[in-house]
């Protein structure tokens, strides 16, 4: 027994530990997080003692943060839950962007329809990748490299086909060209605030989906596959089918972010949406936050994205944001491989509140 047991902070920790083991803990924490996110744009305006958050953090930055939180949540369903490490989610992101922009630019088809077309295409492409890779039992490095190759393949195909915009890509059409004007139906707004709530809604949807999957039989099977695929197959889980389902769901939702990207930014080029770095930006928040958890990707994105954005803005040197990004990658993997969600427990271990570091009753971070 630690001597610090009697201290009040230690009591707080034990309360927290008890709370985390309750079944309502994660939904409650998620509710609090989304509550904060809903009022966050308004908080930017509030100034306390002459200092307001808005001077450092812009709404645009928050939108990008939510985009990567969203993609990380989608990526996590496949790679965090099922353990099939994808290094090519830019393929799905890009398909979402291109499905949307192609249809709206060439045929004036509503971007919401384009988004669903892109999402279905992405899910099909994911199934194709999955069928081919899982059929031949590609794992680990081979699987990661194969997914990367499938993403790069799309980049070079689009780069070389003029009908798909070629290397110069597309410029987002004006909302009047396919709808009555800016608004929800046109997926284009004249200010940033509606975009913020659109991507927040996306994040809410995918978070609910991830949470439901995680607490279902489906999720249980996925985690069994992650822990030991052979054992999972031995107890009768059809691992092939479930891995495919995870890929399809993950790809489907990742494409939404691409569609959002296409309608939020002015131009879409193959070398931006299929870029090598996009693969990393998609998965990093999940790793920083905590692989396989539902809260992790959101927390992770709020650490990673603003940091590199602030670095870019305040240092005014192109490239510094990527140095910060690179440093984060290295430091997180070296010092916090279990992610932000493990920090409370690590703090408790550090201060000796935990009965023993290997305490079996300790909070199981993977429950977040």
């Amino acid at each position, binding site marked *: 027994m630690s001597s610090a047991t009697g201290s009040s902070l230690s009591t707080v920790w034990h309360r927290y530990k008890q709370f985390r083991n309750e079944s309502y803990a994660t939904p409650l924490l998620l509710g609090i997080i989304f509550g904060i996110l809903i009022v966050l744009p308004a908080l930017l305006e509030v100034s306390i003692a002459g200092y307001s958050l808005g001077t450092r953090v812009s709404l645009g930055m928050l939108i990008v943060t939510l985009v990567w939180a969203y993609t990380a949540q989608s990526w996590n369903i496949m790679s965090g839950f099922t353990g099939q490490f994808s290094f090519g989610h830019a393929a799905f992101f890009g398909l979402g962007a291109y499905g949307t922009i192609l249809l709206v630019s060439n045929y004036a088809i509503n971007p919401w329809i384009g988004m669903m077309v892109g999402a279905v295409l992405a899910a099909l492409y994911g199934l194709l990748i999955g069928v081919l*890779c899982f059929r031949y039992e*590609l794992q680990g490095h081979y699987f990661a490299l194969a997914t990367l190759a499938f993403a790069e393949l799309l980049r070079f195909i689009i780069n070389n086909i003029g009908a798909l915009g070629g290397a110069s890509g597309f410029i987002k059409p004006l909302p009047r060209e396919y709808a009555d004007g800016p608004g929800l139906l046109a997926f284009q707004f004249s200010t940033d605030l509606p975009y913020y709530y659109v991507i927040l809604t996306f994040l809410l949807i995918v978070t609910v989906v991830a949470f439901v999957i995680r607490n279902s039989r489906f999720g249980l099977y996925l985690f069994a596959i992650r822990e030991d695929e052979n054992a999972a197959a031995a107890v009768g889980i059809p691992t092939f089918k479930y891995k495919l389902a995870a890929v399809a769901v993950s790809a489907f939702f990742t494409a939404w972010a691409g569609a959002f990207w296409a309608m939020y930014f002015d131009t879409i080029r193959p*070398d931006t949406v299929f870029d090598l770095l996009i693969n990393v930006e998609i998965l990093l928040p999940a790793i920083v936050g905590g692989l396989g958890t539902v809260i992790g990707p959101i927390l992770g994105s709020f650490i990673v994205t603003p940091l590199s954005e602030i670095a870019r803005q305040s240092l005014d040197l192109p490239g510094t944001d990527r140095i910060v990004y*690179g440093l984060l*990658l290295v430091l997180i993997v*070296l010092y916090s491989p279990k992610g932000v969600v493990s920090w409370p427990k690590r703090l408790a271990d550090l201060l000796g509140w935990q009965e023993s570091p290997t305490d079996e009753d300790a909070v199981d971070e993977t429950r977040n």
Partner: protein
Amino acid sequence: MVSTSILAVSSHLSPGIVATAVGVPLQSGTTIVQLLVFALLLGGIYGLVALGLTMIFGVMDVINFAHGALMVLAMYIVWSLSSASGLTPLVFIPIAVVALFGVGILIHHFTIAPIMEAPQENQLIVTFGVMLILISSIEIAFSPNPRSYDIDLGSVGAAGVFIPEGQLYALVISITAVIGMWLFLQRTQLGRAIRGTADNRSGAKFVGINIKRIDYLTFGLGAALAGLAGAAIPLIQRFDPYIGDVYLINAFVIVVLGGLGSFPGALLGGMIIGFVQVFGQFYLPGSFYQVMIFMIFILVLLLRPEGLLGGKRT
């Protein structure tokens, strides 16, 4: 970033321009010979890059995303030393190789060694982080503008085929390095220890090989090979901080094609991709050769994931 075209051969130019760019009158026979020379040259450079990558993979089971960045680092080391001293860049290539060996050891010590036992993704992410840091630092220090070595080279020719001297040097460098590496791995005690560790890590440990030291050596050598290939590339084309990406991605293809961890496979794969790229650039529109390269990659992954010479993961 637009895919950087390798060699003077750019498919965006018409075949006639390609031929004149290398100083050859357009005759189909000599054009083919010329393209074969290019392919051999590019294949040799690819072989070098892939050899370093596949060594690190075979011995340590690590995919080194920083490999392309290490190539770029070597280019800028040679370029800055040469422009500062006014001497020919050729004399600085060995210095860059030694420097890269040291950089490799440092990277291994600070980022890979502490997490050798962690899941595979962790090492992949760490090396990606190192890549971002290296490339962005180079970009800040040297600006993203394309550069070239300050070296004036003529060309040597025989039987109607002319080879620019820069390419000849690059070819000689890569062939010498490949043979040297081959002899080292096959004929020396240390080389055998490296191959033994690649074959069977725990087995190597049991027969008394210090695998931790082998890891350091392997990563250092892998970085040095990347450095050599990188330092040679500006002899045949202009370079910028992002040129490593294209080589890195193609090196992955080559390594899988030849068999992850297979040394002869890396050289064979390098040659194959060198030929596909040079002939593809010449005969196919745009950068379709890259589409072909990825198609080959995916086919190999699916039909023979152990690679052409991979055997049963030796």
